[in-house]
């Protein structure tokens, strides 16, 4: 394939290695420590012998436990970042059907160049978590200021009174508070309107009024109703 010179469409081999590193990274991120369990999971989903291949290529090493080398780690982390960003893009902006998100993200993650990855991240407003609630590893662009880019998905805290939008996702650190918010109807997809922001945030969800403090408003991400978002939604 000649095209692979212009576009970084990886070979099957390369994709497998990337995929394995991504999966390994995610399992280690989730705190899985049993080397046998990791090996079994990765090999069954990709192909037998892939772990040995990673070790030979200097991307992973098997000591007391199975771990990634610095190079393997950066490839794996970057893949996880691209996968989760792709998921967000598919879900929040393209509103792709739920069952289509994962298969698409699994292909997209391999073909996103660094430039495209950054562009998506900026447009989404540097999201912190994927639709499943897993952390998106921050990229260099995330350190840059948000204000200039005019992101589509914003933390509720950035909203002004009178603005409205649809809840995209919630990522509060305080888990009980998250449950309470969900039970009060602040769920992904809910249409909300900001009534006031001081002394506490007051938002209207349908006929109900909900007051919450600023610190929580930082962790609620809302897709702002703008013309662009409206067009994209259609």
């Amino acid at each position, binding site marked *: 394939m000649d095209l692979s010179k212009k576009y970084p469409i990886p070979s099957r081999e390369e994709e497998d290695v990337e995929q394995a590193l991504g999966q390994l990274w995610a399992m280690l991120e*989730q705190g899985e420590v049993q080397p046998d369990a990791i090996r079994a999971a990765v090999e069954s989903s990709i192909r037998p012998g892939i772990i040995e291949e990673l070790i030979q290529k200097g991307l992973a090493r098997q000591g007391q436990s199975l771990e990634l080398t610095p190079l393997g780690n950066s490839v794996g982390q970057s893949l996880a970042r691209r996968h989760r960003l792709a998921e967000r893009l598919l879900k929040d902006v393209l509103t792709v059907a739920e069952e289509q998100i994962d298969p698409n993200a699994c292909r997209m993650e391999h073909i996103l160049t660094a430039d495209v990855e950054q562009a998506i991240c900026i447009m989404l407003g540097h999201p912190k978590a994927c639709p*499943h*609630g*897993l952390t998106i590893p921050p990229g260099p662009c995330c350190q840059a200021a948000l204000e200039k880019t005019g992101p589509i998905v914003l933390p509720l805290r950035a909203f002004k009174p009178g603005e409205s939008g649809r809840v995209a996702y919630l990522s*509060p650190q*305080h*888990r*009980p*508070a*998250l*449950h*309470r*918010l*969900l*039970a*009060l*109807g602040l*769920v*992904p*997809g809910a249409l909300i309107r900001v*009534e*006031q922001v*001081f*002394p*506490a945030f*007051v938002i209207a*969800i*349908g*006929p*109900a*009024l*909900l*007051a*919450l*403090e600023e*610190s*929580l408003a930082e962790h609620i991400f809302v897709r702002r109703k703008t013309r662009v978002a409206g067009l994209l939604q259609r």
Partner: protein
Amino acid sequence: MPDRQDSACDQDGKCLLRRSIILVGQPNVGKSALFNALTGRYVAVSNYPGTTVDFARGVGQAAGEAAEIVDSPGIGSLCALSDEEKVTQALVTGAPDVIVQVADAKNLGRHLALTLELSDLGTPLVLCLNMSDEALARGMSVDRQRLSQLLGIPVVETVAITREGIEELRNAIGQAKPGIKTDYPPEIARALSQLKTLLPEPRQGLAPLLLAGSDDAPGSGLDPEIHDAARTLRRRFVRPPARVMMESRQEQAARLAAEVLSQGPGHGSNPWLERIGIWTLRPWPGYLLACLALYGLYSFVGVFGAQIAVEFMEEWVFASYVNPAVTQAVRWLIPFPIAQELLVGPYGLFTMALTYAFALILPIVSTFFLALGLLEDSGYLPRLSVLLDRLFRLIGLNGKAVFPMILGLGCGTMAILTARILDTRKERLMVSFLLALAVPCSAQLGVILAMAAAASAWTAMVWLSVIIASLLATGALGSRLIPGSPAPFVLEIPPLRLPRPGNLGRKVWARLKWYLGEVVPLFVYATAILFVLDKLGWLEQVNRAMRPLVTGWLGLPEQSAQAFLLGFLRRDYGAAGFFQMQRQGLLSERQIAVAMVAITLFLPCVAQWLMTLKERGWKSALTIGGLVTAYALAVSSLLNAALLWLGWS
């Protein structure tokens, strides 16, 4: 303010009735109003989330026979967070015969999510859409038949407060059925079915709760192995299963709601109320309105209740008519001097206990209960908590603490119970401490306001600044000393409603009845004890023993000792003692200021202290008791010294 009493059930909670029915639902949907309508009993109904913090039992007709009906504190989801939600969780998982879910027809989607969660328990269920009048006013109508089909349970519409639809609900309880099971994602469904194989047949409905991992409360008496199994299963998930399950329920609920809800043009609720409702939340004019509300409260309770009404009752009714008449009657009927003295002497049951109770305190608590009822029923309190959230966060609490603190101005004992609506142990502890230290109850506050009104404006200012400074300083210090941070503030704001005179009247009457039933006897006992102490000559000794403290440190007259003694039995009784001394001209301005500060800061009454002990444990209660005594003594003595130094006589 006792809002519950048990009936038809013995002390172990065993009931003679065949069927037990639990009213469950999110906060502020009208469970208590429905309970009152079903049982004919009265528990407090207000327009703010968290009015009910403990369950109440009653008997009512349901499905053609008498049944036990239980009112429960509001709950967002069965994964309990705060103490009052745990009460409900325990009730619901304790195998009742029927669960009646009370929902607000206005916000159907999120209530249906709870319906699905309750359905999973497998207990026969009825869905009751309450406040259907408000939904109708907004043009919302629910296709009940369709909803009933989809959920597989009876669905009724009610307006509890006007008793609309109550008969239909009574009948529907007979047709209660276990509802449909939530459609969970395959991996959750698999985990649930694995858990179910471990659970005994009647308790299989607990599987979702166990998987969600609310480790502590549900499934008490279950094999510990089951909890281990649930923990192992939980670990297999990348995302917390509690959240995955909640999302599937929310999604299905939203679909259900979309299918049965139709929105027509509403004739709208009262547009003025809505506008005022928004104003009260905004900094401008919200803070101004809050000041006006507090000023209104002060004028009504402090001026009208504590001065005009008290003067009328004491100087006119009691001093001119009741006491002379009673004294004469007693002298004439009972020839024994000692009995005469017990009834009408200086420590007489009539001349002291009943005069204090009816002439001094009753007018004050009546006006306060009325004002508090207005605040509660209008839905103003949640708005106040939004305005004050930031202030409360300075002292390690959040806006929700407004509820126990304002109720504490009514009755500290009840307020300690209300502290259950706070999310963390730290907040509950802080509120219990501040209530004991610096929040005077209505009766006490009324007497103190009356003292302040009779003293100079300076004295009142001194009192107010010392109390507010104490609240802020001890709060800020305590919030640093007690580990943990307050839970983030989240609160649903109910619509502003015009209080219904009927509900308001019943509530004030229920609270007054409690006052008359529980407080007046305490006054009588306390006076009797005082009388005996006086006759035995021990009162003299107590006064003498406390003299260095009272006259030396605090610079108060010797007989103040007994006001402090009485204050511990009933804080208003103690304050009334000082008030009496002031009116007899026994106190100087400095002594009035010191007395007002001391009686506010000193230990709360026995009842509040016992409630603290029950709710917070003896360790916390003893610590609070010790700290409050030490602080009150230190600050009052310092104030005395400072005022002397400033040249107050």
